């Protein structure tokens, strides 16, 4: 169910996310010093390629990471296997990608 490829993907995405999450929190702490409003956030991020890449990476990583994580839980708990399991994994991955992408677009597109 979890062969070395999926295992490595889950670990690598975790390693990518770890600094990104920490960074995100750091920025937020810096940001809130002036009080937080939509405009504030958006002014900082909108139109910035750097933030696009930053959050884009996070979304890609978390989609993969969570999809694999949930895949394992579903397989172990409900004995799901084969096509159904692959379908579920891709579904979760897709959902995270879609919702994540919309969020990233919202905050970074000018």
């Amino acid at each position, binding site marked *: 169910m979890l062969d070395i490829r999926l295992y490595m993907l889950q*670990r690598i995405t*975790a*390693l990518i996310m*770890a600094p990104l*999450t*920490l960074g995100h*929190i*750091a920025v*937020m*702490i810096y940001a*809130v*010093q002036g009080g*937080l*409003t*939509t405009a504030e*956030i*958006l002014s900082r991020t909108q139109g910035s390629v750097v933030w696009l890449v930053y959050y884009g990476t996070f*979304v890609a990583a*978390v989609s993969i990471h*969570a999809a694999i*994580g*949930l895949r394992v*839980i579903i397989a172990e708990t409900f004995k799901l296997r084969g096509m159904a399991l692959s379908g579920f994994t891709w579904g*979760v991955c897709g*959902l*995270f990608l879609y*919702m*994540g992408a*919309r*969020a990233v*677009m*919202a*905050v970074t*597109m000018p």
Partner: protein
Amino acid sequence: MIKPHRTHALWFAYILHRLSGLGLAVFLPVHFYVLSLALTKPAELDSFLHWAEMPAVKLAEFGLVFLLAVHIFGGLRLMALEWLPWSPNQKTLAASAVAGAFLLSTTFFLQAI
């Protein structure tokens, strides 16, 4: 649920990691949804951010941050256990340090907003 063969620290660490992962997987799409409101309905996002000032929501936010801290701690500890030739204690300490720092800073952060 907690059968006798499970009553030891490592198993609790495992279940904590799993539950926090699960919790995050539920929360994150919600978080994404709220942010994406910026695209479609900026007004609602604004009202949400006001709403976020409320203690109950703060508590919820704190809960989720806590989940993330727990999960990061668990994840780093796991990867250290798997890959680093340190002693188990060193690994746990290192992961606790990161998670602790994370939790502390976000608590301040949540306090600030």
